[in-house]
């Protein structure tokens, strides 16, 4: 069998259109004058025709009647798993934020509890509004004024009410 050194590689590239213009023109000129390369190029064309024909025949034999129903079923399954995946990703994304946000959650919870308590136990309309609502043993402060920094607190366990008149300008207590 007669062979051409160029037909082994370059003719196939010429058929696939993968050669640059100068080389493509050169090979095309060669193929025009080379019987071996002309046959090789013709054979490549024939092989492609056979491949396309074989695929077309298989496609025609395939039954696509239930194809879209199957696609829809697969999509539904993918959607539910995607929901779970999305929810898991959402939790994972928020998890680091929960740890430093714990005081914020505690404060929110405390605020809700206080609000709930105030809603269900509103102060009597006739009661005055003292600065400090105290238990029986604690002092009730009606008014308080000072020229220095003053702190006021009630100790729940000892029932002590303390008016702290700071002796420092920086407000340091102890």
């Amino acid at each position, binding site marked *: 069998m007669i062979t051409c050194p160029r037909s082994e590689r370059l003719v196939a590239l010429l058929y696939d259109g993968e050669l640059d213009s100068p080389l493509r023109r050169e090979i095309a000129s060669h193929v025009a004058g080379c019987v071996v390369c002309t046959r090789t190029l013709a054979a490549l064309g024939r092989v492609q025709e056979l491949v396309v024909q074989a695929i077309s025949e298989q496609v025609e034999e395939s039954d696509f009647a239930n194809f879209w129903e199957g696609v829809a079923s697969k999509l539904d399954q993918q959607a539910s798993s995607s929901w779970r995946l999305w929810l898991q990703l959402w939790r994972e994304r928020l998890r680091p934020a929960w740890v430093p946000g714990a005081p914020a959650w505690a404060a929110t919870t405390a605020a809700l509890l206080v609000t709930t308590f105030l809603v269900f136990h509103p102060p009597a309309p006739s009661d005055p509004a003292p600065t400090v609502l105290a238990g*029986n*043993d604690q*002092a*009730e*402060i*009606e*008014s*308080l*004024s*000072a*020229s*220095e920094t*003053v*702190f006021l607190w009630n*100790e729940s*366990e*000892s*029932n*002590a*009410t*303390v*008016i*702290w*008149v*700071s*002796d420092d300008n920086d407000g340091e*207590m*102890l």
Partner: protein
Amino acid sequence: MTASRLTLFCFASVLLGAFQVVAGEMVELRVETVLATNSSQEFDDRLKDIRPQLNDFRFSSYRLVQEERRRVDWGKQADFLLPGGRFLQVVPKGYINKRIALQVMLIEGTTPTPLMGTLLSIRNHGMVFVAGRKHQGGILIIRIGAVTEE
């Protein structure tokens, strides 16, 4: 002054007077001054009845440096001289709902300057603490108590 305001004023005066009669004609004021420091572990035994309250201040040492009791009429001002040239003015204002209303003023300085003034009420036999002023390496804790006959 309109008639309605005059009526309201008279009614309030009668009520206040009635409360004071019910509570007794006089009130006993008790002012104790405690020096709290961290210089030792001393605890004055005379303060044992208020030890839980003093422990809230988280000092290591508590010593009673002054105690004074005074019986005063309702509405009359009582002046207490405190360590460090400070004054405490206390005026028992009335007795309502088993609570004694007190007007308290803390005064300090060579030209007396009010540091703090408050109107408060404490339970009969109750107390309130005024603290925070520095004295001899510690701070002063002033316990103000009031007692009246029910």
